[in-house]
């Protein structure tokens, strides 16, 4: 059996066998550099970075059945809620040098780390900005193939819609991770997800897939959308 296996043909996301089990991994764009304490593994002259699903909703979604072709080499990605860049770094690995990821984050403390990451990776543009107001960063951001949102905000569906309207290409896709507890502490998660879905749909955006990742992240749901 191969020790490295591609999840799907279109996208360089891999299963990699390790002495103590197997893990998701991407090919390291900056060999030798670690981003968040992940493992670097050499296989067939290529360096892979293991991808911890507990720290990434995108990885969890892949494990829960999402096609890995959502992110492809050369893609232009708008990433809202980039934090310190854990998942961003893997997106940066996947899209490669031809792609670009605009990493928007609200907290200055987090953006500091993000900037360090972008110093080394030419396909990341760090943006200190508030995702609620996409026009404030519309000087830097251009058309994108994927809008990715993981912001844990009460109005995250509204934020999602605004950013899609402004930046998403006609044939592009969008990913939103919804945390039920940051929308309502009281309401049942199922109802919260329904409500968020309604907000998205009422803006003429189609929810094409619903992926439950609560196995890996409590009370979280992922929607894949398109225009």
């Amino acid at each position, binding site marked *: 059996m191969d020790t490295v296996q591609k999840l799907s043909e279109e996208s360089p996301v891999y299963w990699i066998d390790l002495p103590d089990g197997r893990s998701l991994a991407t090919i390291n764009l900056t060999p030798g550099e670690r981003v968040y304490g992940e493992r670097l593994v050499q296989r067939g002259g290529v360096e892979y970075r293991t991808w911890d699903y507990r720290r990434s909703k995108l990885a969890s979604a892949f494990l829960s059945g999402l096609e890995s072709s959502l992110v492809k080499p050369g893609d232009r990605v708008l990433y809202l809620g980039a934090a310190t860049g854990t998942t961003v770094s893997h997106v940066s690995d996947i899209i490669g040098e031809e792609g*670009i990821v*605009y990493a928007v984050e609200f907290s*200055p403390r987090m*953006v*500091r780390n993000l*900037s360090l990451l*972008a*110093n080394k990776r*030419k*396909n*990341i*543009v*760090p*943006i*200190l900005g508030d995702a609620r*107001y*996409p*026009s*404030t960063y*519309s*000087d*830097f*951001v*251009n*058309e994108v193939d994927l809008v990715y949102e993981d912001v844990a905000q009460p109005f995250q569906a509204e934020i999602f819609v605004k950013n899609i*309207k*402004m*930046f998403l*290409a006609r044939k592009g896709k969008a990913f939103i991770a919804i945390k039920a507890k940051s929308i309502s*502490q*009281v309401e049942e998660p199922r109802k919260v997800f329904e409500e968020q879905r309604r907000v998205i749909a009422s803006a003429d955006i189609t929810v094409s897939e619903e992926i439950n990742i609560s196995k890996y992240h409590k009370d979280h749901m992922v929607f894949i959308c398109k225009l």
Partner: protein
Amino acid sequence: MKKILVSPLGIFGLEGATLTPLLTFENDEHAAEVLAGIRLEDPERVPLDQLKEILGEDEIQTHVPGLSRLLKSIGLEAKEVSDDEGLIAAIKGKPGLMVQAGIVASQQEYYSLLHERGLLTTGKLLQSATTGRDKLVIQAILFLDDLDKMTNLAVVRIREWYGLHFPELDRKVENHATYCRLVAFVGPRDRYDYDSFEQLNLPQSKIDQLVDLARVSSGTELKEEDWKPLRDLAKETLNLMEQRKKVEDWIDSVMSDVAPNLKALAGSLVAARLIAMAGSLEDLAKKPASKIQVLGAEKALYRSLRTGTAPPKHGVIFQIPLIGKSPWWIRGKLARFVAAKLAIAARLDAFGGEFLGDVLNQQVHDRLEELRKEFPQAPEGKKAIKVFPKGSFNAKGFSRKDQPKRHGHPGKGGKGRKRPHGKRKFKRKK
């Protein structure tokens, strides 16, 4: 009417799908300076005069809110538009448009400039985001908590260690600093004579007790050389306590500068803690009074929202003596009032208002008097939640020993577990 497109390469007029340069950036540094200036709406960083000359009197539409507000401030008719089809198409299509207009040779060049200038602009925005002195105060107040943890850990060890030699002392001397001083400057039991106590400033009766106790102690021997590491630890711990005092003083002095109104109302430490919990002074200023009232009582608040128990009356503002020491039946009413005044104070401090601390303080005191008059006694039929049992409030304030064991209270430890002296419950923001 003119449409304006802002990009990392410059500011452009937009007609249909053609660009006319209004301001092209000379280099990365220039671009970052102007773009950060637009975001921060800082008129000194954006060449507004130059833009005004080129733009004339035309009505202007742009997609960047910062620019439209800046233009408005110099008397131009500018509007922020986010739903204009032409503009949206231009925003999306910047790379292509720039190549078409001959500003860059290829999209590749555009993206490479975008990366460089994005990094630089973000760097500049970060600089202005972290220059506030309130951020220094936040680090300092968090450091106070760290210091408390460190000293507590050390004191527990010292008491245990020295306790092998002099077990009776642990109960006799409750004050951590005094205990450490005894370990550091007196040491082995056979040195417990009157000369050794000279510099310690203890009352005579206490010294008598200690000397007697040392004579009859059941502890093991402690040789001079075995005492040394313990002595050094005790000295270091005393240094830490000294350090705490210094940090506290520093916070106190900086708070007069950063947030004089908040300080006047809440005292510098509670005020600093409120700022830390909100994230910054400005964040605190943007919070409603109702939120300020329960900052630090999140656990109780969310429990209340989830299960319908009574909502918390106060969070960290409980530590304001005025609130913490007033009778329980008016404490909630007072907390609500104080929180409202704190919200005003925070806004004054954050947005450069005058000093009204003494006025606000007076209002709070008046309100307290009013409440005392209106509710002189505990309401009948309602049972006091026994936060502090009868007799807790004597002339010396309340004593820790009087606190009941089984009540979660902000800043006072959780269910039934008594927190070590000085340790506060305080969650760091992520």
